[in-house]
Each structure stands twice: as structure tokens, then as C-alpha cells.
């Protein structure tokens, strides 16, 4: 009996020590393991590498082309009704999104408008990756009946009908050739060059330092971290890189792996479920402006992304992981805007329901409400202004 009592006393004492240790821990700066610090640094904006080269676009890093592209990006003349520009859907004030479930310009599009921020780092454009460069992507909406609703001949005519545009174009690409030729090569080249100029501008659209980045900077450089993030935000960050498994897909300084995943979202009402990447990978192989096309400026024709692209039924319903930077002003979320708030998104991942088509790659998280709030609090710390052409917007 007495030995049982002794055991109990020892256990209680150990428990008390444990509690007080925890308490002390929580009253000081949170301890991150070396592995966690490595993970935090990997998510840090300062870890973002230099802009990747785009050998398919000779003017990708040309400042004149970027400025030309900026004008084109906001020019409503590049549309069938003279009322639609790239910025109709990619609105600066909404971090280059539009606040709608599905994009609406001349008509209703199939999917939610993705942000442009950070897309220069992705080998794939669109939710389904059906284009493999920013410039090839920029061309598609111009000819989409639901978006700009124009065509390449009209676009080229409009650009060359503007004296300033014509001068800039010819300075960048040389004199305009006869675009009425029977083989369409000159027309397509001029059209592609317009896309490459828009891409030169889009390449400059960047995220800026968020509170999360300031926190990591303080952690790495020994600054005062505690004033930067609250206890809830830090708890959310801890969940984000550990139990919640968010960094399986949302990794790197842009918090995306640029890959395609099925996360079991419902269809948009009235639509069949979106096959997404399964269709997108097929389309990019057939795209007339893809990396292998004659309109690419890469004479080596080096296209590893296409050469090694994954295909097959496991891509059914898989959409591209979006960046988690700048979630502010970008609701609703997901590829059809199915979820209206970050809380809804977290609830969806917490449950990880079976997919309507293909297989939901996510597992239920089993987080409680407090933990979901902490995650939401952390995600808000990634909010920050964006910049373009080196200027904060």
C-alpha cells in the first residue's frame, strides 16, 4: 500500500514539473527545433531565388518590353467590345484577382481567376496547367469568347494602329512583317510577341515582405520575434508546418509546389466535376504556343517540363496548388470559387471528404476549432502589398 502511495506521489510530482516546464515554455519565445527553423527559412520570402530564366521569351527581362506589356495589360481596346482588358479580371486592388467565383468578362468563364503574383516561378499556367509559359497564357484570353473575345488579327491591327505601340514594338522586335500572309507565321509571330511583352510585365509582379517574413528574419537574425506574431499566429504556424501537413503542397517561399493535386472539392453547381489537370496536360501538349513551338525563342528547344510531364488518370480532378501569399482580397477560393472564406477552406481540409472524381489526396486533419482559428490567424500574417515593375502597388 505504501509503495503504491509513493508511486502516486512521484507521478504527481513529475506531472507538476512537466506542467511548470510547459508553462515556462509558453511564457518565453517559442522554441523551434532545428528542423522547424529550416522549414521556416524555406518559406521565407528572402529564400525566393532570382527570377527563373525564360529562354522561350527573348524580351522576358527587357524593361522596355515590360513597360509596353504594362500598357497592353490595362488596354481595353484589346477586346471585342472595347471594354475588357487583362485587368478586368486581374484587378490590382484585389491582388490580381476579381472577387468572383468564376471569372466574368464578355461572358462567364469556367474557373476562378487565379492571381498573377508569383506565377513567373511556375512551369505551368492556369489551374489545370494548360499553358507552359506566361506569354503563352497571356495570349489565350484574348481569343476566348468569354474573355476578350477578339482574335489575333484584330489584336495585331489594334497594336499597330497605335503609333506609340508600333514604335515600341518595332524597337523591340523589328519591323512588322506582312501579317496577311497565307501561312499565318508572321501573324502568329506578332501575336506571340505581344504575349511576350505582356509576360515581361507580369514577370515583375511580386509579393512583398509580410509579417511572417519579418518574423522569420527576426528568428534567423536574432531580432525581437515576439512583437511580430501573436501567440495564436505562432501556434497556427506551428500547425501549418507540422500536424496540419499544409507544407506538403504549400511549400517554398511562394507557399506552393506548383504541382497538381486533387483535394476533393465539389463541382460548381450546374457543371460536371472539373477533370482539371487530366485535360490540361493534354491541352498543353497540343498548344500552338508551347515550349516546343516555332514561336518559342529558345533555339535549343529544351523543354524538360513537357518532356517529363506526368500524365494519366491519377491527374483527374487535380488542380494547381495556389500560393498562400496575399490571400487578403482574393476570396472566394479554389478553382471554381467553391469556398467563400479561408475558414471554409480550412474546414474542407479538416474533413477531407471523398472526391467526386479521382481521389482526394488529402487526409482528414482532425483539428479542433481553436486550432483552425490559429491556422487562419497564421495565414493572415502572409498578407502584404504586391509590387510590379519594382513599385509597390
Amino acid at each position: 500500500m505504501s509503495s503504491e502511495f509513493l508511486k502516486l506521489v512521484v507521478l504527481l510530482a513529475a506531472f507538476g514539473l512537466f506542467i511548470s516546464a510547459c508553462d515556462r515554455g509558453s511564457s518565453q519565445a517559442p522554441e523551434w527545433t532545428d528542423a522547424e527553423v529550416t522549414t521556416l527559412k524555406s518559406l521565407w520570402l528572402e529564400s525566393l531565388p532570382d527570377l527563373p530564366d525564360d529562354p522561350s521569351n527573348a524580351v522576358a527581362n527587357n524593361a522596355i518590353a515590360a513597360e509596353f506589356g504594362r500598357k497592353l495589360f490595362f488596354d481595353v481596346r484589346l477586346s471585342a467590345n472595347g471594354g475588357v482588358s487583362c485587368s478586368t479580371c486581374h484587378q490590382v486592388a484585389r491582388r490580381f484577382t476579381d472577387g468572383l467565383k468564376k471569372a466574368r468578362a464578355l461572358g462567364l468563364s469556367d474557373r476562378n481567376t487565379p492571381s498573377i503574383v508569383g506565377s513567373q516561378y511556375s512551369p505551368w499556367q492556369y489551374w489545370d496547367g494548360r499553358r507552359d509559359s506566361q506569354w503563352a497564357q497571356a495570349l489565350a484570353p484574348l481569343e476566348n469568347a468569354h474573355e476578350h473575345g477578339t482574335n489575333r488579327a484584330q489584336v495585331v491591327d489594334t497594336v499597330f494602329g497605335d503609333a506609340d505601340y508600333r514604335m515600341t514594338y518595332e524597337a523591340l522586335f523589328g519591323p512588322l512583317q506582312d501579317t496577311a500572309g497565307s501561312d499565318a507565321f508572321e501573324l502568329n509571330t506578332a501575336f506571340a510577341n505581344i504575349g511576350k511583352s505582356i509576360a515581361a510585365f507580369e514577370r515583375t509582379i511580386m509579393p512583398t515582405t509580410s509579417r511572417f517574413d519579418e518574423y522569420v528574419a527576426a528568428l534567423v537574425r536574432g531580432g525581437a520575434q515576439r512583437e511580430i506574431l501573436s501567440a495564436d499566429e505562432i501556434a497556427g504556424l506551428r500547425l501549418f508546418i507540422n500536424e496540419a501537413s499544409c507544407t506538403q503542397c504549400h511549400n517554398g517561399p511562394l507557399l506552393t509546389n506548383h504541382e497538381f493535386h486533387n483535394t476533393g472539392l465539389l463541382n460548381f453547381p450546374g457543371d460536371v466535376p472539373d477533370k482539371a489537370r487530366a485535360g490540361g496536360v493534354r491541352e498543353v501538349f497540343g498548344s500552338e504556343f508551347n515550349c516546343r513551338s516555332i514561336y518559342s525563342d529558345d533555339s535549343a528547344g529544351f523543354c524538360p517540363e513537357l518532356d517529363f510531364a506526368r500524365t494519366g488518370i491519377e491527374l483527374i480532378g487535380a488542380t494547381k496548388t495556389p500560393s498562400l501569399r496575399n490571400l487578403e482580397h482574393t476570396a472566394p477560393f479554389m478553382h471554381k470559387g467553391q469556398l467563400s472564406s479561408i475558414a471554409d477552406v480550412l474546414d474542407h481540409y479538416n474533413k477531407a471528404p471523398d472526391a467526386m472524381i479521382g481521389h482526394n489526396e488529402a487526409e482528414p486533419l482532425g483539428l479542433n476549432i481553436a486550432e483552425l482559428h490559429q491556422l487562419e490567424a497564421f495565414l493572415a500574417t502572409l498578407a502584404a502589398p504586391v509590387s510590379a515593375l519594382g513599385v509597390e502597388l
Partner: protein
Amino acid sequence: MISRRAVLYYQLISLFAVLFSWDVSAHGGVVEEDDLCVIKVNYLRAHFKVYQPGALGHEQYCEDLPMATESVFVMEYLHDSLSEMPIDFRIIRNVTGKGRFARMEDIDLIDDIDSATVFYRAPVVEPDIYLVNYQFAEEGDFIGIVSARHPNTGKIYAAVFPFEVGFTGLGYWPFFIGMLMLIQFQYLLMSGRLKRWLGKEVAVATCVILGLLLSPVLFAENLVVTYTTPDGNPEINKMHDWIVHIENDEGLKIEGAIVDVEGGMPKHNHGLPTKPLITAELGSGDYKLEGMRFHMSGYWEIVISITTDNGSSKVMIPLQL
């Protein structure tokens, strides 16, 4: 006695399995396999599931749908060639009169399939996965028909699956509940509890009444056939008599009919070990059927042919022993 009851419940579960595989035998349909719903378009198979995402979220259904609302039909190919074959998808109102026993032959008999059609998607090659979104305007009985054309032979394979929208009818449930009660009753009878409670005569009378009330009710055009057996579910290898009751759907008892009975096990491709006969007409639509015997457990089909002045019809009674 408990193990005996377990056997009886096992039989009931087997009956579920048999009934859900009902439409598959000839041309293809929808069945449950290892908790998955599978559509068989001849030898071509696909996972089959239906969602009502607007109303019921991620809940998936195999055939019957709870309500008339947006419904998404999904076929995930288990056979690669389906992704290269033009597939069309048709939903018709179930005008076959065969309810959920409708088969391809019944579809072929429909004169004007277009007027019964509520949804049609023309043949299209759908790589990866086949998807249809249809908004049901009303509840009722429907039949889905999926056809795939073989790219080389031109042969058309079809799957037919009757289903309900809005669960307007009761489906198999009255049948299952009836069987369940019969089995429970049989158990009580066999265990002697019922006798202790009620006395033998009352027990037997109750058995007959319950049997009459709850035995499977099967429809053939306008005829309704019920049957009673002395011991509930027939015992294997024991010859016994049935009483077959025939009336039309207005409750008129059919008298003076010529009634023939055949039966067998489709899976084993053999008939009954006996040649049972209607030996007496008992009046009030009752006929005495003698010489029934089953020589193995499994799935049996008993086909009762009824000829009256108004013509002939056949009723098939499924039995899981």
C-alpha cells in the same frame, strides 16, 4: 437456435446481394462490388456513382437518388478501351411497366423512346472519366441507359439501370421487412417461444396470416402473385407444398387460371429436381402447388406462368436459400 437464426439472417443478406445484382445478368447494369458501385457495359466495367452535390454534398449514391435535384453521374473506367469509345447516356422515364426489373429487352419494346427521354447526351469520346450533370425536374421511376460503341467492330454494348428519384416508391424495402419479420417469426415458432405464448393453433394461424401478409408480392402486368409455404423459408431437400395466391392489381382474385410452375438455379444452369404441379384450385385465387423441393442452397428462380381468358403472363419469384 441462435446459430439457426444466424443462418437465416445470412440467407436474408444473401438475398440483398442477389436482388442488387438483378439487372446485370444479360446485358449489363449497375451492381455493388466490394462496397463499390460498378456499371457493367457488357464486359466493360466502370465505377459508377451519383452525387447530388447541391443538396447532399459529398454523399454518393449507387442508383436510387433521394430527391429531384441536380445530379452528377460519374463513371470511372475500369477498362481502358472505354476512354476511346463513343459513349452516350440516356435517362428515360420508366415506362416499361417492369419497374426495377426492366432490362434491355424491355427498352427495345418501347415504341417512342424519345418521348420517354428526359436527358440524352449524344455519343462522345470522353478520355479519363465520363461525367453527366442532369437536373431532375420531378421525382419518379427512371431508367439510365449507357451505350458504348466498339471502335473496331462497331458493336454496341449497353447497360440498363432502373432507378428511383425521390424514393417515390418503397423499392425493395417492404419485401425485405416482410422477409425479416417472417424469419424472426419462424425463429420464434421454431424455438417454441411462440407456442408458449400463444398456443399451437393460434401460432399456426398467425403464421399463415403473417405469411399471407408479408410474403413477397410480385407484379406481372396487372397480376399480383403471393405465396405461402408451411415453414416460412423452404427447407433444403424436403418436399413440400406451396399455396399460390393470384389476384389482379384491383384485388380481384383470379380463378380458373391455368398455372404452370418452373424453376431452377440460373448460376448453376439447372432446374428444380422435381416437376411440381398445381394439384388443386382452392378458391378465392388460391392454388395448391405440390412437389416443391430444393436440393441445394443458393439463388433460385421460380417462374409461375398464368393463363386466363385475358391472356398469359409470367411472374418470377426470386428465392435465396
